[in-house]
């Protein structure tokens, strides 16, 4: 295991240290004393396993393509911005705009997430991103979604916060959102329909959640006990009749 002390390091220096370690072929890298440094793992390739101790800053794993990053605490905004491949595991909560335009790979968050998570996600056959959120999410979950899978679990039921905010799936035109429990239709964008899950959905869910459970030591059966609702776009062209040709 290769260790990098990030205490007080400037993000550019820290990132070049990480990049160098990956290029040298280090497979397991631990960053200690991380405290808000931006862009960790930005554009990084390969298949290294990176563990982050401390709270990483914005744009963690932006444009990343391959490595696995495990954050042992909370994370901030813009994680997995336009990420292409690999995996990010957050043991705590994470902030706003996670997985913006994400094109592949996985983001697993154990806790809650903020606003605009999974917006503009893309997908093309097998190349499709997955985001699983264990807690609750804020407004605009899955906005403009064009592909991939978003799963919201609401595992730690709290009375203070609903499982998801307003404008769920607004502008969605591809992909699928799964929410564990009931979905208030009033919270959904006009462009989504709420469906019951079928066997194919169960397969998608089980595959994604088995991996999620492994990351956090959870039991798949416990999660699957509660039924899911599926949200899909009702039209592939939600704004098709807005214009006069």
């Amino acid at each position, binding site marked *: 295991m290769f260790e990098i002390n990030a205490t007080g390091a400037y993000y*550019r220096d820290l*990132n070049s240290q990480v990049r160098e370690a990956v290029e040298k072929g280090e497979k397991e890298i631990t960053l200690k004393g991380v405290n808000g440094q*931006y*862009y960790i793992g*930005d*554009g990084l*390739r390969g298949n290294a396993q990176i563990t982050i101790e401390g709270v990483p800053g*914005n*744009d963690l794993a*932006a*444009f*990343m*393509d391959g490595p696995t990053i495990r954050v042992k605490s909370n994370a901030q*905004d*813009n994680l997995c*911005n*336009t990420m*292409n491949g690999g995996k990010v595991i957050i043991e705590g909560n994470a902030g706003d*705009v996670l997985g*913006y*335009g994400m*094109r592949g790979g996985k983001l697993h968050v154990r806790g809650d997430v903020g606003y*605009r998570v999974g*917006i*503009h996600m*893309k*997908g*093309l056959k097998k*190349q499709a991103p997955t985001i699983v959120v264990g807690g609750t999410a804020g407004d*605009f979950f899955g*906005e*403009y979604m*064009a*592909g991939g899978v978003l799963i919201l679990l609401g595992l730690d039921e709290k009375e203070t916060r609903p499982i998801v905010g307003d404008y769920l799936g607004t*502008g969605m*035109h*591809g992909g699928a959102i799964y929410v564990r429990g009931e979905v208030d239709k009033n919270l959904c964008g006009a462009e989504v329909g709420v469906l019951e899950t079928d066997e194919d959905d169960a397969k998608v869910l089980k595959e994604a959640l088995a991996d999620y459970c492994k990351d956090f030591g959870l039991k798949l059966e416990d999660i699957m006990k509660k039924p899911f609702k599926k949200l899909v776009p009702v039209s*592939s*062209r*939600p*704004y*098709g*009749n*807005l*214009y*006069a*040709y």
Partner: protein
Amino acid sequence: MFKSLAPPEYIADIDREKCIRCKRCIQNCGWSVYSWGGDKVLINTSKCVKCLRCYHYCPEEAITIVDNPTRFKSNAYWSFNNIRNLKRQAETGGMPLTGMGSDQKYPILFDSLLIDACQVTNPSIDPLREPMELRTYLGKKPSALSIEKGKDGKARLNGKMPPQIALKLPLVFGPMSYGSISLNAQKVLARTAKECGILMNTGEGGLHEDLLPYRSNIVVQVASGRFGVNPDYLNAGVAVEIKIGQGAKPGIGGHLPGEKIPLDVARTRMIPVGTDAISPAPQHDIYSIEDLRQLIYAIKEATNYKPVSVKIAAVHNVAAIASGVVRAGADIVYIDGFRGGTGAAPSIIRDHLGIPIEHALAAVDDRLRQEGIRNEASIIAAGGIRSSADAAKAIALGADAVAIATAALITMGCTTCGKCYTGNCSWGITTQRPELTARLDPEVYAERLINLVHAWEHELKEILGALGINAIESLRGNRERLRGVGLDAQTLDILGVKPAGR
């Protein structure tokens, strides 16, 4: 269904005496104006957009396309288009879409600016026989140079120069995405850029693998839809551009109609076939200059610090915005004026929002100079550059380089019919229909575009020669060599230009 009360704009007519029934007009028209009636060509004139494809391909010159003489009663206030749009809105309830830059009668300052020339007291230069430098470097320039003498006695630059992009002349092609234009049209731009030592810009639709051989002349774009953006893409070109706005539709997003999203475009963009590709106006991770800085540096981190350009539309407060963009770390600020083109925009937006590039450019250049940061970024001026004279005037107003797009499409056959959003372009430019795009042979049309670039190159050199200067650098921001004709005092003040006669 009753007949539309919006009368056809054009009348297509075939001289039946001349027509040899070869059906070429039927094949060539992307709008299905013509069909075969068993013994003659039938005409549905309401579909005609006057792109003149049929006219050019009729071997007998039997076709004429005229503006429909049957117009609403002419009126200086209620224009034909105004009334026609009202009728269309009454029939559809939609926003009338349009393509190309605004064609409305706003003042065109380029046409009120004249360039100086030498006479008697200061000699002009003959560019045919004397060297003339058009080379332009885009990128951050250091505010001071420190030079040291090396051990070999030669002068050497101290420290590292920020990355620069060399252009053979101060011209680039404006961003037009795969999807909005055809791959063949993009190939024409890419071939020309390579041949002429300038740049083409992918627009926001991702990079098709066929363009990879031209990577050293390509700028890749990242917009709110993030279509086709991955680490390979970011590193594929010589620079990355973040698109914030577009002159033709400032403050509103991109919207590529589903008609223009077949499999290959969907694959490049990673969205479902036939859906509308939505890239909303706000990038929801950019709500401030600080957020913009975050994305700029996220891209720089992913590309080992390639130059980043930020494209903004010219709006009222453009000078302050540009200052923020420069301070956010942009290497290039691309300003797109009110006349800038588009593949699809609601005409109400295109014709009524934003400000012209002439005002914007002068204001931005002034502001950056006042703040002492003009060297921190290059300025590309775009939005209705029609000729090398417009380019020279823009450079004199403060641009480092200009971008052209419509002018480039015109070399491919475009007649500015403005129907790009339909996906039916008969010239194979703004369409994805394979039978139409196949007409645009990249090799043949690249030759025409290369001709255009060479012609502008000669013209720019002639202008410099007449001015008595031998490098484009000496014209840059040199407003003393411009004069305004028929402009009011305030406009002259904004432009920083004297009236003719002074």
